[in-house]
């Protein structure tokens, strides 16, 4: 009788714990602003710098584009073959009167090309990472002549959607996955090297967002496996 009672209590406890575990998903919204530099001339084009504000401050970041198939610039020619390829492959022109501009999609919609990747590292040792499902860069055609001048390329806006994978989560994010988005500017700061500044505003009002959760990141067992595997190697 006692044994049956104990067994019943044990089963009940397991059920209670199971239900509690299943329902106790933690949701976190992280905000961030960024400031860094990089260049489409680099291989791979990687923009890296500081997390300047928000819940993940202080820290560092990088966003990297996949440049498979991009040509290198030939210094012996007047044109920039690499940039010409990027503009021709990713950008399309919108001739709307008064709103003339180029929109560039990385990767191009429906192309199946590799997505840009990203990582955020806080100074406290927490890490987040994943892919950008799409990064959009828009360049205004200020004189509406449908020709992209150097001065027009120099000042751009950029935005992107992010997916955070559990396998890149570390520290307090080791069991988290999620989605997010960011927006900002991408301006040439050195015309000689084509170095550009990526700015996601702002330290006082961080616009970048990551919506994270520590449950349902992968199907059932896989979710636990990632945590277990990572804990083994820590």
């Amino acid at each position, binding site marked *: 009788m006692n044994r049956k009672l104990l067994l019943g209590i044990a089963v009940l406890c397991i059920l209670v714990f199971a239900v509690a575990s299943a329902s106790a998903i933690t949701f976190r919204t992280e905000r961030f602003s960024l400031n860094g530099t990089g260049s489409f001339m680099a291989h791979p084009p990687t923009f890296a710098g500081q997390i300047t504000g928000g819940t993940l401050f202080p820290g560092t970041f990088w966003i990297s584009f996949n440049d498979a198939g991009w040509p290198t610039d030939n210094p012996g020619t007047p044109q920039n073959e690499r940039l010409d390829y990027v503009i021709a492959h990713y950008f399309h022109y919108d001739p709307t009167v008064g709103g003339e501009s180029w929109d560039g999609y990385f990767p191009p919609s429906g192309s199946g090309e590799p997505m840009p990747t990203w990582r955020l590292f806080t100074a406290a040792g927490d890490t987040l990472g994943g892919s950008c499902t799409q990064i959009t860069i828009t360049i205004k055609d200020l004189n509406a002549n449908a020709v992209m001048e150097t001065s027009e390329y120099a000042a751009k806006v950029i935005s992107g959607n992010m*997916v955070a994978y559990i396998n890149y989560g570390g520290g307090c994010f080791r069991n988290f996955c999620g*989605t997010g988005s960011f*927006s900002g500017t991408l301006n040439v700061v050195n015309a000689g090297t084509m170095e550009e500044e990526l700015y996601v505003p702002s330290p006082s009002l961080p616009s970048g967002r990551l919506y994270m959760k520590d449950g349902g990141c992968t199907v059932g067992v896989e979710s636990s496996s990632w945590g277990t595997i990572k804990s083994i190697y820590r």
Partner: protein
Amino acid sequence: MIMKGNMIIGLFLIAGVVISPVCASAQLPEALSVQFEFDGMGNAMINSLPVYAGSIYAGDPLVLGADWWIRIDDSTWPPPSNPQVRWDYLFNNFATYDANSFSWTIVFDEASCGTKPVWEIDHVTNGTMGGTLVVVVTFTDWDQDETLDIDERMFAVYSGNLIIMKYGTGIFAGYCGDGTFNGSIQNPDPANWADDYVEGSCFLNLQNCQIGTRETSWTAIKSMYR
């Protein structure tokens, strides 16, 4: 007669005194950046033309308290009388599934809509500005079954870029530029085509585009004297 002439001069002087402080206060720098936070509601499935609209609740005082709206040209979409058909059309034609990130991405631009979506910000005292935009929405396939389940339609992230046309009013008159925005979309009941709640951040780069107008004017003036 002299009395009448003096009166007219006096009126001009008064008008000058009244107008000059207004002009002085309305003078903004050649370029400025405006950042703000916004939220609002909209429903692209049961409304035609779909409008997402709301208010700016934090950020730069130039736009704080202003109303905003985004309008999407749905002339190429099935009518909203059957929202399921309308959703299926959008999803089947414009959503791209990525098996690595387990997500669908839909771009709302001149390819997926009849024309590029348009936007406007209306501030009661400072004026209006607007232009075109591109919005990119991403849904996550949480259970990785390559099917966008109803619960997965309850939350999405978005980002986009916009162009500020030089057709603003008030203190925004003469400005053009570009901008960028991002945030999230939440839907409490997608199965019954409930309204979307959107929240996000926006950053605008405004620059004085009146120089361009002057150039046009000079050309026009010179052509008149040719």
